[in-house]
């Protein structure tokens, strides 16, 4: 076992909080199943025992955006639906990631038409595109693994909204200069 063999040497190992947090976050990505059409069926299949998305720590599909880290947009997004998707995305807490699952979501797919958004990257920041119509569960799992890689590499400095190191002293300076 990996962890125990490390611990038997000296009983401790060193890391940074940043890396530990990224490691923990990477292995428990809670998806928001934004299942809009047929891709959602394959998304459900990736949760079943055969494909078993829980191997990657992502079996807790939450139907409330407030508990999710990852939005899987699975299906054709029409202009009318785009506002709903965006509203749900905005309710997810930071940090958050997006998988565009399938051809329709990524590019509009076969719906080259006035009512379908030709790619959700027009209004959402997409991290991984999963190709296929619909993508097989393996493909979705691959997309999830890529997201995990990305999450594992993120550090505090990647979030500009989060107070960075040295922020407090800067604020003190500001406070002192005002008074």
């Amino acid at each position: 076992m990996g962890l125990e063999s490390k611990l038997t040497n000296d009983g401790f190992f060193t890391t940074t909080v940043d890396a530990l947090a990224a490691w923990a976050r990477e292995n428990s990505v809670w998806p928001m199943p934004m299942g809009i059409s047929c891709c959602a069926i394959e998304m459900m299949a990736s949760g079943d025992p055969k494909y078993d998305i829980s191997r990657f720590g992502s079996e807790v599909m939450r139907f409330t955006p407030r508990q999710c880290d990852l939005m899987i947009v699975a299906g054709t997004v029409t202009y009318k639906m785009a506002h709903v998707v965006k509203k749900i995305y905005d309710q997810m807490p930071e940090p958050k990631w997006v998988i565009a699952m399938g051809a329709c979501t990524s590019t509009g797919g076969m719906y080259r038409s006035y009512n379908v958004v030709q790619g959700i990257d027009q209004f959402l920041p997409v991290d991984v595109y999963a190709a296929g119509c619909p993508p097989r569960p393996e493909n979705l799992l691959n997309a999830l693994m890529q997201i995990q890689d990305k999450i594992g590499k993120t550090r505090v400095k990647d979030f500009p909204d989060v107070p960075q190191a040295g922020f407090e002293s800067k604020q003190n300076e500001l406070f002192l200069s005002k008074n």
Partner: protein
Amino acid sequence: MKELLNEKLTKQFPEIHFEVIEQFDELTFKFDKSAVVPVCKYLKETDGLKFNLCEDVTAVDWATRKNRFTVVYHLFSMENKFRLCLKVDVDESECSVESVSSVWRAANWPEREAYDMYGITFLKHPDLRRMYMPEEFEYYPLRKEYPLMGIPGAVPLPKK
């Protein structure tokens, strides 16, 4: 059934000309749009006809023809197991026809759809709003002049 319908309709509405079209094993009556509601009411309520199911109300855009649109009603008689199609022409200058939702309540949503897609106004409709497109949308997407990919900015996307 064809003879019976023809006889009954011409007897009941002597001032209206009914054009009889038969194609695809289906009977079609084409007549003036002013008589839509009385004819539909008669077809629904008369014994022996009883067209009690309004399957669909839709429209056709002929683009360059003089009477640009045709409104199509698909009716079915449960009693006689007979399917009938009614057609009325509507011109773009006077783009309206009286609603049959007072006859069949099922016509409510199909008429809203036809209004949404072709811009044909159904007079005396109880709730004539757009069916699929957003309320603030200004165009009629199934009209022939509407481009396939739409008009950029016609439906706003949320901000990134």
